């Protein structure tokens, strides 16, 4: 898989650098022979992260062009090479996103770096297409706690966005969310709030006021307010988020019970885990608050039950459903919720058998 190379043996002026750390390389990948590493650990990380999937593609990109006599043939070859490069960038982008959503950041970084380098080679150093790469790298670095690296990437992303006057609001929204996360992680709460509010504004413009993305922004803001010691604001934001998710999940449940389809495509695994974490965080806050409201807790537990049912985890759904039933006995109203909890319990029990 790898063979050692001697840097001194390279032609004059040619420096072979490691893929990950950009130090002088001592190893070469034998499959494609265009990728270099400084030690076996880096090679292993890169292999698991991205190299396994793109090695053959790299070979075909770097192979010398065949001799074509016609200009048309040469142009066709050039176009095909471009297509392959774009394909490479796409694969790297998707892989990096997958690793980030699974929260394994050290795997995400090589993929994101490959994405960035090839995008720079193809599109130049400032256009907006590089911004997703920068954002992924920043997110991975925040996850790995290297804040200065993350800040560097985000500054570059900001500069790219500033240079394109008619940028898509989605890009603005993603950029501000990453910046908000960075500032929240470093403890600069007012800057974090500033960025999150811009994020929510852009997200509302693109996705509407009532969407998962906007409410994701609200949740992040609520956390910052909590750290700033403003529990009443946090509570009102958490209530909004909880209501939204409850309505959204109820709608999905109704859709399933009416059409009878399997609940497989509603949530991906990573999204399921994320939403579960969010709802449990809100529930914890609600329980520790000075004046706990039992109907709010019941709402949250019901939402958790529905979420796990939609992700096909029937044991957890049953567990949360029973808890919700207990909580709802306390409050006098909410007959429709009682009914839907009953339905949920029946459904889960049916599927467990």
């Amino acid at each position, binding site marked *: 898989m790898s063979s050692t190379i001697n840097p001194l043996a390279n032609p004059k002026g040619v420096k072979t650098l490691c893929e990950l750390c950009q130090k002088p390389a001592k190893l070469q990948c034998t499959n494609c022979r265009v990728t270099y590493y400084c030690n076996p650990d880096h090679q292993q990380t890169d292999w698991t992260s991205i190299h396994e999937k793109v090695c053959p593609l790299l070979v075909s990109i770097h192979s010398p062009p065949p001799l074509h006599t016609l200009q048309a043939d040469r142009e066709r070859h050039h176009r095909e090479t471009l297509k392959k490069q774009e394909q490479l960038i796409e694969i790297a982008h998707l892989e990096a996103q997958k690793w980030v959503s699974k929260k394994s950041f050290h795997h995400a970084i090589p993929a994101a770096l490959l994405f960035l380098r090839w995008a720079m080679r193809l599109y130049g150093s400032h256009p907006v297409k590089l911004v997703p790469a920068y954002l992924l790298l920043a997110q991975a670095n925040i996850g790995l706690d290297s804040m200065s690296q993350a800040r560097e990437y985000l500054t570059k992303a900001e500069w790219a966005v500033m240079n394109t006057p008619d940028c898509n609001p989605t890009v603005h929204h993603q950029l501000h969310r990453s910046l908000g996360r960075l500032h929240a992680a470093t403890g600069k709460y007012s800057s974090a709030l500033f960025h999150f509010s811009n994020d929510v504004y852009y997200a509302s413009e693109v996705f509407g006021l009532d969407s998962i993305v906007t409410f994701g922004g*609200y949740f992040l803001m609520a956390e910052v307010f909590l750290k700033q010691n403003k529990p*009443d604001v946090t509570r009102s934001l958490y209530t909004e988020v909880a209501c939204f998710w409850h309505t959204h999940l109820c709608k999905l449940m109704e859709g399933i019970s009416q059409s009878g389809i399997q609940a497989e495509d509603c949530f991906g695994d990573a999204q399921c885990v994320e939403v579960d974490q969010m709802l449990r965080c809100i529930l914890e806050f609600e329980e520790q608050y000075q004046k706990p409201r039992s109907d709010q807790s019941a709402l949250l537990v019901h939402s958790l039950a529905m979420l796990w049912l939609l992700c096909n985890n029937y044991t957890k759904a049953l567990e949360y459903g029973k808890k919700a039933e207990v909580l709802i006995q306390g409050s006098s109203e909410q007959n429709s919720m009682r009914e839907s909890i009953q339905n949920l319990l029946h459904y889960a029990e049916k599927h467990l058998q």
Partner: protein
Amino acid sequence: MSSVVARNSRTLFPDIYNPQKQRRTSTFRKPLRQNICTGLLCAGFHRSFAQLFALLQRWEEAEAHPHKLETLQSFLARAETAERAGQYGEVYENHLCLARFFTESEDEWLKHHFFQLALQSARKLKIDSGKREAEANLHIGQIYFVKGQLELAQEHYEEFYHMTLGREWQDTSGRSHHECSCEELGRVYTLLAERLLQKQDCELSIKMLTKAYEMAKESGDSGPKGKAAYRLGLAYQSIGDHTTAKQFLGVYKDISTAREDMDNLGRAYGAIAKSLESSGKQTEAVQYLEKFAEISMSNKQDRNLEKAYTYLGSILNSRVQYDESYVYFKHAYEIACNMASVSRLQKAQVRVGTSHALSMLQAYYKHIEISRRHSIQKIIMWKEKRQDNFIEAM
């Protein structure tokens, strides 16, 4: 050397990573609506943000009115703080201030929106036993009235009426809420009745007018009561029920006499005369019409006078009293000469002519039948010089 560079570096190189400066520059770079929205969110007012954002989606020229946006921001923030503290009275006041702030015609929809919000927040307020809810109903009713959606206005006014029944609430100018509700309801019912009349639905319109009359009676103010009675009387006349019409017109007449309102009194006499004539009591009708003419003359109201004379003339015509009717028509014609309307003048001319002719007709025929030299001379003289000697000794 390095220290000099270090000292000057703050001025030589721009400080691109100072968050305060970054935020200040962004306030200039971004549009005002974005700054206001982010301002609300940073302060924690996410509901105000949601409301404002929804409004901005519908309102395209928001950028041109910065002071309006700023007012919206401040009042919405205050309303949200009050809502979080559970003080719905404060929320109501803030929404009301916002509704009153938008006075231009192009902002009518904003006014409407905030009055609706004020009603919703007033509904949540239980302490003052519904006074603010009643006021909110009044405001919304007024908005619908101005827009022309009379059914919705009626609904809200009726709610206002029911809430103020038996209560002693007063508004800022000291006027009782209940009186106000009666008046507004009366107006709505009258307009609805007019609409129904246009659609030829007489029964329903009479029901509406009766309701309007009840409201006017309850409010205690005799002016609207008289007018409502008059309209009811006219409506009953149009369907042919003259006894009830006379009853209501009698009420109208009494009120006008009590208020010494000559104009309305004259109209009352005229209308009563009409119903009397239709029910066959022509002498009485003539009496009333003479009273009408008297009043109009004393008030120098030429139009009414002309109407009175014309009407008298036509009644007398139908009773074959052509000489007297000719006199009245001549008076009417003289008045019509001074008025600006050509069609009226022409009609008056026709009437004068016909009544004069009818009054001379009998004598003329008699003369022709006699056909002696004396009478034929008279006829010729009339033809030549229009001298009317027929009624002399024959």
